[in-house]
């Protein structure tokens, strides 16, 4: 039984290898994006004793490096290809096989995350040697535990979100790319804290954002790690994250069943 998913994990890795130039480019772009944010904050905190938005130099630069790692763990995915598979009609091939479509793609995502994480760790090490930022290492067991729990929830959260967006292809095969662009490239990128930490925004805005699933993808886990969110707040955040996972899982099931019925297995 496990054999099935090991094979999927393996073939997904082999596939990435077939596109190594694309993959290398992707890693290069990830690192370059970090450069902008790193130097931005570096210049803000050019006075090392400065404290702003609740961050000191160490914590903000740890945040930046943390984003690089968390993007690899949470946001790396192959499920972006689902929409294309549906609109081309290739979904038929999977419907004919005794394999769960969700488990298939989740396994492929894990494979991508593993690969990206490997590279991200190396990149962080190199950048650390080059830029020598002061990094914050969390030592509180509870915080670390909370960080790991919220991280696991974040992985599921993003998978469900991404998959749901891709299912738009059942109803709008030509325009699903636009939905992906809006929800993943723009909304997720910003509202998950991927470009700037959400706590520079006014409190009322933050409170609103915390009702949405996005901050729980990267911002919330990082805040827990940095020790900026603790105790009942941390617990509450984890509950909201869990709530979103359940809501999206149910929603995904409903949308999937509706979509499958509509699926005409296009292409004669």
């Amino acid at each position: 039984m496990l054999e099935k998913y090991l094979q999927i994990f393996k073939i997904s890795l082999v596939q990435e290898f077939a596109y190594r130039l694309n993959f290398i480019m992707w890693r290069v772009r990830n690192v370059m994006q970090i450069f902008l944010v790193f130097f931005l904050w570096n210049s803000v905190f050019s006075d090392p004793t400065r404290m702003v938005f609740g961050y000191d130099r160490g914590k903000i630069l740890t945040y930046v490096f943390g984003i690089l790692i968390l993007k690899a763990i949470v946001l790396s995915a192959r499920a972006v290809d689902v929409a294309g598979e549906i609109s081309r009609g290739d979904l038929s091939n999977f419907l004919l096989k005794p394999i769960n479509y969700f488990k298939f793609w989740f396994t492929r995502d894990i494979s991508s995350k593993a690969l990206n994480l490997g590279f991200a760790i190396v990149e962080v090490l190199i950048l650390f040697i080059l830029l020598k930022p002061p990094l914050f290492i969390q030592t509180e067991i509870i915080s670390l535990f909370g960080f790991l729990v919220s991280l696991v929830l974040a992985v599921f959260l993003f998978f469900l979100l991404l998959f749901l967006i891709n299912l738009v292809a059942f109803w709008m095969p030509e325009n699903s790319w636009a939905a992906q662009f809006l929800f993943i490239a723009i909304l997720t990128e910003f509202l998950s804290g991927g470009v700037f930490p959400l706590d520079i925004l006014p409190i009322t805005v933050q409170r609103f954002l915390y009702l949405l699933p996005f901050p729980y993808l990267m911002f919330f886990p990082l805040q827990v790690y940095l020790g900026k969110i603790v105790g009942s707040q941390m617990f509450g955040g984890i509950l909201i994250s869990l709530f979103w996972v359940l809501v999206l899982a149910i929603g995904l099931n409903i949308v999937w069943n509706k979509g499958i019925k509509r699926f005409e297995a296009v292409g004669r």
Partner: protein
Amino acid sequence: MSKNAFLSMLMNRLGALVFLFGKILRFGFFIAFIVFLLKGTNTLAGYNLNQTLFFFLTFNLVDIVTQFLYREVYRFRPLVVSGGFDLVLTKPINALFRSLMGGADILDLITIPPLIVAVYFLGMSLNPTLVQIFLYLLLLINGLLIATAFHIAILSLGIITLEIDHTIMIYRDLTNLGRFPVDIYKQPLRGILTYLIPVGLMVTFPAKALMGLLNPRVTLLSLAFGTICLFVSLKFWNYALTKYSSASS
């Protein structure tokens, strides 16, 4: 040419509108970022809120106008691979013009006028002299010339190596570093970004000129650089054409 692009786009109207909305949203998010960041920090690399916003708007102006004009470059690789470039070469329209500018995206036209208005109002709030305004416009055009030169070079590289997509991505990622004034970067990165991959020259310098922060020697150097870039890229294009091996079977 653009009418056909418009019609086929109407077919993907919903997708295009969502895409446009996404781009506007991203713009808005960055503005919010700058505004709230500077609320807390007061300055960024010595610049105040209005100045930082002005840098950002100038970046967007150059970026969006460039993308608007040269959208066709993104379609160049399929054109060459399919052999369609042969047809372009044999038609009476200049091949470079066609490959560069044949696909102007009408939707971008919607975003440019409001941006120009915003640039105008923000720029005026910095109280520039007439000379500074003139220098700004001059260096802005210079920046567009450099961008043009880069796109021509990308096309030329595409003819020779059939590799465009990655080159464009690298170009976009590097120019995106110019969203903020290049002063935030430490040397040697700052030097690289100013003179080697001249984002600094294209975007930061015009804005600095408006604020009277650019010395005349550097201004002249920039203009010279821009002209040389364009000249070299055109030479590169002609060279690339001689190396063109038709892909059609």
